[in-house]
Structures are given as C-alpha cells and as structure tokens.
C-alpha cells in the first residue's frame, strides 16, 4: 500500500485563503473608488463635511445644462480621429514588418515598440520645444519667415494621440499577422490577386476582430489622456473631459462633487467601451484558424518602394521619439529659450537648478519608491488574480475576471477622484501619505500585469499542475512549486512593464498630490504649466527617462543572471 502525501488539507486551505484574500483586496480596491465616485456625485460636500447632504444639483449641472457638451465633443473628436490615425498607422506598419521584405525588418520589429516606453508627457514637452510658433526648433530651422508647424492646435492634439498610440495597435495587429498563416494570402495570390487586392479582400477581413479590439483599446486609453492635450490646447481654450475633471478639482474653490459627476460621464463611456472590447475579443476566438504544419511565411516584394517603406517607419520613430528627445536634450542645456539656434550659450544651469529644487529631489525619491513598490505589488497580486481567473479553483472567479480588468477602461483620472473620496472618507489618515499613491497606482496598473500573466498561464496549460496534483500537491504547493517558477519570464517582464507604466503615470499622482508626494511626471507638469520653465522641465523629463532606464537595466541583469 502506498503512502499518501501528508498535510494536503492544510495545503489546500493555505492556498485557497491566499486566493480569497487576494480576490477581496482587489475587488475592494477597484469597486471602492468607483462606488465613492457615484456616491460623491449625489452629495453637496466632501465626505465628513458636517453640512454635506444628498443632492441632484451636480447631476443636473453636468447632464442637464449642456455645459458638458463641449468637453464631451472635444474628447470624442480628438480621441476618435486619433484612434483612426493610430489604427491605420499600426496596421500599415504591422503589415510592412510581417508581410513584406522591408529593409531592417529585424531592427524595426521591436524598434517600433519604443514609444510605449516613453512618457507621453515628456514627448509632448519635446514637441512644444520643437514646434512652438516662431521659437520652435523646427520653425527656426525652416528657412522661410513664416512658421511651418504649430503645436498649439487641435491638429497637433489629434496627431499626438494617433502617433503615440500607434505601437499599441501595431502590437495587436503584428501578433495577429504573425499567427495568421500567409497561406491564406498565397491562395489569393495564386488565383491572381495583387498584393493590395489580397490585403483588402483576404488579410484585413480576417483581422477584423483585432481591428475592432485595437480601435476600442486605443479609444479607451486615449480618453484618459489629459496632460498632453492640456499642454497643446492651452492657447485655444481646449477642454476635454479629463481636463474638466482636473479643473473642477484645481480651481478655487475646488468642487470635488462636480469633478466626480463629470467623472461619471467618462465612467459610463468607458464601461460601454470595455463591454464592446470584450465582445470583440471573444469574437476573435472564432476566427482562430487551425494551425497547419506547413506554415507559409511568404512576403510581398516591395520592389522600388522598398527604401520608402523603411524610410516611412524611421520617420515615424523620429517624429514620436527621436526629435522630441533631441529637443529635450538641446533645451536642457540652454539657460533661456532664444529665437535663434545656438550652441554657444550651452550651460549646465538648468541641471544645477533642477538638482537644487527640493520638489525635484523629492520627486526622484518618490518615483523610485513608488515605481518599484507598485511594480512589485501588481506583479504579486496580478499573478494571484490571473491564477484565480485561469484555474477557477475558488468561487467568484468570473466576477473577479470582469472587475479586475475595469481599471484599464475607467480613465485613471476618474479612478483617482474616486480614490480621493475614498481616502477622505476613510477613518484612517491615509490621504497625503505615500501609501495613498501606492494603492491607487497599483489599482490603475494591475490590469496590465493581469493581462500578461493571464495569457502566459493559459499557455502553460493545466496538465503541468495536474501532474503535481496527482502526486499529492495541494493548491499552495502547486502555486509555489509549479506555477511561480514556470512563469518566471512573464513575471519579470510583467514587473518591468508595470514599473515603466508607473513612472510615466500622470493622472493619479496629479490628482492625489500633496506637497512632498510629487512624482517626476508631476514635477514636469508643474514646471511646464506653472513657471513655463522649459529648460528645467526638459532636465526633469530626461531625468525621468534615465531613472527608469537604470532600473530596467538592473532588473534585466538580475533577471538574466539566474536564468536557467
């Protein structure tokens, strides 16, 4: 008679307890602020205020007076057109990389993802330096007297949204094209279909679910973009929804209830968008084609247009990352902006100023502390949530599945207002501490790690755990011995992604900022919008990139050293 493994009951109990605690914490962190937001919309004052009472005034002001229509229209217009640009660019680039013989394919394949790792606010500051009327660097280089580019326009806002989010579409479209057997396209070609006809009649229709899903994703992500449109729209009185929320909070007197109510408009829009997104994703599963063994990888020959295709991709990268970064570096060495190009007045005065600025020093520390801790928290909880969702060993997994992904759709600024309320209402004095930022940032970032690890865990399959289970491993030991070590790679890359996304977060730290709790992104924002000191803000924007870059390199090294 064989021996049984001992303590399997304790093992199961420990494992399930961890999963249940995770589920409760994540549900509270996501549902809490959203609930507070809805509550706030119907109150006259901040929580705890002695004279606060129930009211419909805020709701009437937002939904009844038509004042919301301008920001709403601006949001839909800029995000809609921006999404269109991102989708066209993203699919075009993906097709060039994965289906043609474009030059430098190997470099461009991962190179096109570079913009994701840059703070959009820093890039936007770079473009202000490049394309301000008269004094922008591009206008200075332009040999004629009239300005050629102007960053303070609606067009600039739309272009920025479109180009910044292009890599997100490229990622989705590229993934789909990579797994789509080019044999379908060969079959069209052999019947006489020219490349463009094949693209239109075969490739694009097969990628329709990805087209719909990535459009919705970009639209959802872009409606929470507020710092960059605010920067470009400063001279044309541009107001979109997140900016309206921001103004309601920062104006004197602040109206937190109004901010929350405007937030509900975005909340409803986001929930609808998210539902559509999930529908698009689930319909994409129907399109999954049976993997044949002879996987065709034939590429269209570009012929004479080949150099132009590579040039196009390179110009794209220059416009989004290259030029703005060069502009930031240039300005960081200039003591003051001048209407002439000049290298002779270069000095380190901006660097000295920045490093003597207590806000900047605090911001470096806060950014490091918050980014590392938020990345760690979201990796641990993201792993556990993904485990719950994929393995379904405890009840309520499907609820968690639906709720935990909410923060990707609910604009960060809306969630932040909800968190603000939750903190003001909470009996413990968490508001104004670094913990407040940590919790809020973790909630905003966690859907990204969940999505990563969810996919990796599905790929792992269930048999590796069954194999341990039948030998006597309960839930806890299965997680510890099998799932965790096998997901090392995705855990490390998930950590890095969460880290990067935290360093570039603007909305959360701006709404929840208290003196001494700024992050570098907030410092850039304060310097640009407050004193308008482009030199010092360039230094801080670059600093943000350097800090992030160092940590990423360190993490990569640690990750590689004890790799199998």
């Amino acid at each position, binding site marked *: 008679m*064989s021996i049984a493994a001992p303590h399997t009951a304790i093992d199961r109990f420990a494992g399930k307890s961890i999963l249940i605690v995770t589920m409760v914490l994540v549900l509270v962190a996501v549902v809490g602020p959203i609930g507070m937001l809805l509550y706030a919309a119907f109150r006259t004052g901040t929580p705890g205020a002695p004279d606060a009472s129930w009211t419909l005034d805020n709701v009437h002001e937002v939904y009844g007076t038509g004042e919301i229509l301008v920001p709403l229209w601006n949001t839909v217009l800029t995000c809609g057109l921006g999404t269109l640009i991102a989708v066209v660019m993203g699919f075009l680039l993906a097709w060039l990389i994965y289906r043609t013989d474009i030059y430098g394919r190997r470099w461009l394949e991962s190179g096109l993802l570079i913009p994701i790792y840059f703070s959009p606010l820093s890039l936007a500051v770079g473009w202000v330096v490049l394309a301000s009327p008269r004094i922008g660097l591009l206008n200075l280089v332009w040999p004629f007297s009239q300005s050629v580019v102007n960053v303070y326009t609606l067009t600039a806002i739309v272009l920025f949204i479109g180009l910044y989010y292009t890599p997100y579409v490229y990622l989705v479209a590229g993934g789909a094209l990579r797994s789509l057997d080019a044999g379908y396209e060969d079959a069209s070609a052999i019947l006489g279909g020219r490349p463009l006809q094949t693209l239109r009649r075969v490739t694009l229709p097969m990628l329709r679910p990805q087209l719909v899903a990535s459009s919705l994703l970009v639209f959802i992500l872009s409606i929470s973009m507020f710092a960059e449109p605010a920067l470009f729209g400063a001279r044309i009185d541009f107001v979109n929804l997140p900016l309206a929320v921001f103004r309601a909070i920062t104006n004197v007197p602040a109206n937190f209830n109004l901010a929350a109510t405007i937030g509900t408009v975005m909340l409803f829009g986001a929930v609808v968008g998210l539902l559509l997104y999930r529908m698009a994703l689930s319909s994409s599963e129907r399109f999954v084609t049976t993997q044949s063994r002879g996987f065709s990888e034939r590429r269209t020959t570009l012929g004479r247009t080949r150099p132009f295709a590579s040039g196009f991709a390179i110009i794209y990268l220059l416009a989004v990352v290259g030029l703005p970064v060069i502009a930031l570096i240039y300005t960081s060495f200039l003591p003051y902006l001048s209407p002439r190009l000049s290298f002779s007045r270069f000095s380190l005065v901006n660097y000295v100023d920045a490093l003597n600025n207590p806000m900047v020093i605090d911001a470096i520390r806060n950014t490091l502390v918050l980014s590392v801790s938020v990345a760690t928290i979201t990796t641990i909880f993201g792993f556990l949530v993904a485990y719950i969702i994929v393995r379904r060993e405890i009840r309520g997994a499907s609820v968690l599945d639906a709720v935990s992904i909410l923060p990707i759709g609910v604009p960060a600024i809306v969630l932040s207002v909800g968190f603000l309320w939750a903190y003001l209402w909470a009996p413990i004095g968490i508001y104004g501490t670094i913990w407040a930022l940590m919790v809020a940032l973790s909630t905003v970032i966690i859907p990204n790690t969940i999505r990563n690890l969810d996919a990796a865990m599905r790929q792992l399959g269930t048999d*590796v755990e069954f194999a341990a289970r039948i030998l006597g491993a309960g839930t806890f030991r299965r997680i510890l*011995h099998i799932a965790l070590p096998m997901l090392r790679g995705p855990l490390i890359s998930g950590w890095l992604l969460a880290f990067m996304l935290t360093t570039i977060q603007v909305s959360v730290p701006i709404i929840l900022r208290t003196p001494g709790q700024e992050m570098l992104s907030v410092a850039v924002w304060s310097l640009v919008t407050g004193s308008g000191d482009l030199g010092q803000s360039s230094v801080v924007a670059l600093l943000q990139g350097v800090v992030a870059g160092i940590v990423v390199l360190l993490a990569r090294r640690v990750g590689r050293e004890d790799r199998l």
Partner: protein
Amino acid sequence: MSNPTTILSVSGLKKLFGNNTAISDVSFHLAKGEVVSLLGPSGCGKTTTLRCIAGFYSVDGGEIKVSGRTIASTGVFVPPEDRRLAMVFQNYVLWPHMRTFDNIAYGLRLRRMPKREIEERVNEIMRALGLSGLAQRYPHALSGGQQQRVSVARSLVVEPDILLLDEPFSNLDAKLRVDMRQEMRSLLKRLGTTAIYVTHDQEEAMVLSDRIFLMSGGKIVQEGRPIQLYERPATRFTAEFFGVSNFLPATVTEEGLDLGSGLRVRGAVERGDFKAGDKVLVAMREDGFEVTPGTEGCGENAFGATISNRLYLGGSTQLQLESNGVSFNARVVGSAPLEWPDQAMLRLRPERVMLVPDESDAR
C-alpha cells in the same frame, strides 16, 4: 463482485459536459497487479473515464472505489492529491524548471520522506528505466524517449495504488514506441503495479494489457483478453476496430453458411450462439482467403472471381475481387499477383470465419 483482490471498482460511471453525455454507465473492476487498457476511437470516452478516476473531473453518477474507499460519486469528491494515484501524461509534462532528479523526487518530497531514502529510491527507479547518468539534466536536454521514461519514473517512484497512463507512447516515433511498450509491460509486471492505459492503438493495447475494455460512444462495448477481442469480436464495431475489412451478409445453414448468389461455405465454422437459419455477418480478415491465379479450382469453398483492383503494399499485395456480385478484400504475400490475369480462384478458409450479428437486419 468485490473479491478481496479487487483494487479498483468503477460502477455505473456517468459524466456530462453541459448537455453532452461523455460517458454513461461505465463499469469495470481491476484486480491488484492487473494491467488493462481502455481502448477506442477518439471521442469514445476513454480519456474522460481516466480523468474521472484521476480526479480531474467530478462525476455525474455512479461510483469509483479504490481499495474499498469511495473516492468519487455524486456528492463525494476526494481531491486528486488525496487519491494516492499517479499518472503519465500524453505529453509527459515534465516540469521544465526542475532537473531529472527533482522531477522524479517531487512526489517523495511531498511525502516528507527522509533525504537518504529519496535518493535511494530515485536512483533505483532511474536504474530500472535506464536513466542513470541523466539526474542533473533539465528536461529540454533529454530526448523524447528519455522524457517519457522520466515521466514514468516520476509516477512509479511513489508506488501508487494505481498507475494511470494517458496515451503515453503516442508522441514517440514508431520504432521507439514498439520497444517501449514491451519494456513497459515487463517493468509493470516485475513491480506488480496495477495500471490502466488509455490508447486508440489496438496493437499497443494487445501487447500491453491483461484485459482490454473496448469503448464506443461513452460505453464499454466489449471486454476481455486481447485474444478474445481479436478472434471472437462480439459486434461488427469490435471486428472493424481490430482490422477486419470484409463483412458479408449470410445465413447460417446446417453444413455451414449461405452467402447468397449461390456462394456457399461448408465446414467447421465456429458458430457461437448462432443456429441454423440465423441471419449473420461473416467477418473475414484479408488474410483469411487463399487466392490463386487462373480458373483451376483449388478445392472446397472456392469460387471463381475477377480481380478488380490491385494495390502493392510492400511485403504483400491487396486485391479487390468480385464473385457473383459479392466483393472481397484479400491480401496475398509477395508481389506476384500484380502479374496475374484478371481471373482468379478465391478460397475461403472456414476456420477463419468469424460471425457477428447483422445489426442492419435487427432494425
């Protein structure tokens, strides 16, 4: 039913997936030390049955008992980790982050066995499976056959009450597969392990098992020793699954069989439960005929036939013949039939005749 050596008893097992019945009323019993196969085409419910026993599926009816302890029935579910079983998976699922030794030792470590003893047992099983010297290798540095052995070692080292094997050889190449199944059989017999195989390969099932349970449509349709299923199929399904390709409607007569159209068979036909006058199907393997070229008779039970198709298979030639409107599939050793004229004599060996009920008639 439950004699003292019964280690596993499955009775009336039922499993639904949504509205689809995956298996219904599956019952069988295993004696200690017995090696059996669940055999059948894909979708017949063999893997579902195995996974119910393993505990990866709950059951919707019936009962599974191991050594008299109920481990699954409606309302009872002993988790897999408490079932004291072991399983070899189709794709081995060795944990890629553990070395060979750690993969094999995993179950023993869960059992809190002293380190020395773990080392002894793991080394012993590795020797038995010819894995010595590979202890420090990671799975990706092992060949397919070695991975398969490690996966077997990992399961056997814990001395499970019952070893479950889910198509363990299907990912090996043909030569290795033949070697492994013989080796596996002698290893299991030497260790006295009780084992259940799931496979769709009838040859593999025959080589490996003491008994075979042939499944179809979620039910066991015939069980018995390999030779019983091969030589005495109870139904057309069993006969077809074991490679019979001739099914001729016939009537049982006092002297033998009447195939209609004037074709009669005389001689020692194994009738089983059939009696004269019964409508039956004559099941004949391709090598149950003697074929000779020309029109010269070759004795009793021989008919003149026309060759309508010849397929050279390598060591033998497959012939399709027509006689009085009845077609036959026959196989002749060698390639000579390719040169034969179309006219041939076909002799049916009565001792090779198998009779199964004519189900189309029953309807």
